[in-house]
């Protein structure tokens, strides 16, 4: 996809997006609602025409083709299953429309039903199925014609948490088994991190960062990305020196720590540094303390305890501690605390 622009009236839904999605990749478009990710998906599917730019599939321009001429299928957000058809007829619909021989359709439908584990449900009307089963029919229906690209528009958002978790694993399995390129749209960062090979984080119609889940989480390039995905502490700092991939920054507390920075940038002057709460350690104030603050609040979450600290310069800072079975964390509100950081936990953001 190159320089895609989509306007609805005066509203620019997608603004100059360029993406390259590799074949067999599980690619996720992640962003808050209204960021243009669904519009982007609909343009790949052919339901919307880009105002500007081109969409290439294996080197061929497809932006002007209608949806029924693109080897791309979609799993819709509300499944959009045909309510007047059985499970088998739903799954076989695409092949039937392609004019495939009956024997082939039957065989593929049977394969698909096995693949999505709906054996024995072939003759049911789709309206008789549960949400999770409908979801799997929608998947099978979109996979049956063996598209080059499968588009998934928040397909898990209507399912409850447990089902969603198992469908995440299922989706990943299907993608591995079929070898089809998946383009997945979601606003759920956890879903994106769990399944994707690569993620494009979007906001306001633009792609903010593209990278592996690890890169997106641990090496956020922008404030939006760092803020949208997971919980983050933002610290102001000053760059002292840069060597290779690492810079040394001086924090407000005066301590100097190493920090990584986004590729193609050279950090200098005042910068914002992010540290994930689980990468910081709380300890009594000592020479190893990089930051110091007082405990504002302690939140017990079962697996973790969150210590909300207010640093000396007033900046809020959160530390996440994994709980052991040794009882409460041992700190109390109002206590003064030191925060220790390992050498590789800080990331400088692009301005």
């Amino acid at each position: 996809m190159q320089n895609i622009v989509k306007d609805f009236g005066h509203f620019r839904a997608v603004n100059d997006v360029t993406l390259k999605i590799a074949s067999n990749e599980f690619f996720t478009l992640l962003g808050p609602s209204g960021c243009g990710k669904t519009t982007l998906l609909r343009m790949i599917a052919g339901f919307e025409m880009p105002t500007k730019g081109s969409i290439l599939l294996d080197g061929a321009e497809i932006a002007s083709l209608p949806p029924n001429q693109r080897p791309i299928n979609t799993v819709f957000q509300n499944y959009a299953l045909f309510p007047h058809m059985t499970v088998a007829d739903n799954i076989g619909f695409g092949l039937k429309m392609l004019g495939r021989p009956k024997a082939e359709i039957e065989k593929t439908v049977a394969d698909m039903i096995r693949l999505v584990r709906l054996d024995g449900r072939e003759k049911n009307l789709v309206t008789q199925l549960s949400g999770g089963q409908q979801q799997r029919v929608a998947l099978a229906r979109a996979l049956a014609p063996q598209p080059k690209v499968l588009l998934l528009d928040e397909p898990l958002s209507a399912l409850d948490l447990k089902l969603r978790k198992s469908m995440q694993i299922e989706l990943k399995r299907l993608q591995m088994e079929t070898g089809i390129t998946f383009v997945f749209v979601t606003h759920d960062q956890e879903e994106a991190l769990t399944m994707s090979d690569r993620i494009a984080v979007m906001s306001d119609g633009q792609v903010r960062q593209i990278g592996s889940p690890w890169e997106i989480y641990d090496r956020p390039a922008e404030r939006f990305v760092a803020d949208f995905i997971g919980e983050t502490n933002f610290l102001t700092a000053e760059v002292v020196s840069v060597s290779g991939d690492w810079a040394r920054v001086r924090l407000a507390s005066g301590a100097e720590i190493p920090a990584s920075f986004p590729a193609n940038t050279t950090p200098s002057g005042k910068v914002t540094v992010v540290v994930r709460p689980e990468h910081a350690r709380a300890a009594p104030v000592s020479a190893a303390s990089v930051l110091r603050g007082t405990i504002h609040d302690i939140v017990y979450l079962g697996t973790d305890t969150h210590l909300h600290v207010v640093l000396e310069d007033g900046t809020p800072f959160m530390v996440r501690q994994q709980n052991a079975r040794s009882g409460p964390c041992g700190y109390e509100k109002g206590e003064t605390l030191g925060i220790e950081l390992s050498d590789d936990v800080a990331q400088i953001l692009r301005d």
Partner: protein
Amino acid sequence: MAISPAEASEIVRKKDIRSRWLLSAPALILIAVAGVGPLLIVVVYSFLAPGNYGDVKWEFSTEAWFNVLLSRDIFDDTVTLADAHLSIFLRSIQLAIVTTVLCVVFGFPTAYFIATRPIHTRQIWLFLITIPFWTNMLIRAFAIQEVIRNEGIVNSLLMGLGLIAAPIPMMFSDFAILVGMTYVFLPLMVLPLYASIDKLDFRLIEAAYDLYASRFNVLMRVIVPLVKPGLIAGSILVFIPALSSYVIPRVLGGGKNLMIGNLIELQFGQGRNWPLGASLSVTLVIIVLFAMLYYVRNASRSGGTHG
């Protein structure tokens, strides 16, 4: 006095039944007085003998029923099929079917158009569709006449443009009847179709396109099966009044293009044969009944196998 639980529930049950009958009484009375009663009178009349100046003689006779399908030669008493009646029945059924088909052909795009407009403009369109209902059907029939008669709007326009030299005769023909009935009954098709299409999930259409369906296949395999209830309701609403249509064939069909309605009217008027009129009416009811049974059954069955 103590009441056992069984007795108590019996009392409650009886009360329940009583209140249920009481609540449905208005509907039952209406059905009896306005529906079953008149129909019974018609059935009874069909088994009586005709009076000399209209009305009936109160003696049992099957002559009227005999005359529906057969006719007895007045000289030698040979019995032949009543060709005139049969052909009128057949013509009426044909015209009603064609009218229904025409209403689907014109009504479907209209309903689809309205259902896909923005919500606030839809009401205006629906309003426009229902406006003709406010006018008497006779007036509307004359309006159609004004459009298609030899000196009417269409012919004078075409002649004015020099496209034709002489007017195309359109009045007093089956064509005129079809134009009139399609025009008059179209709203009865559009409204139920609109209701069905309005409920249609347009994402299903996208899904079908996405799965390589052509425009034709999207229409036939997704849209039509899903709006079938509206299609059936509309067809019934058009077919029944079209079959028993009276005013339109009278005004636009002229004297020789009779439909069942005119034939029945004839028996009560000039024919002075009320029992025959009554038996023809009952026959019409039976035809409609069977047509509906056949149609609804067929429609629901094909829905099952298609899907």
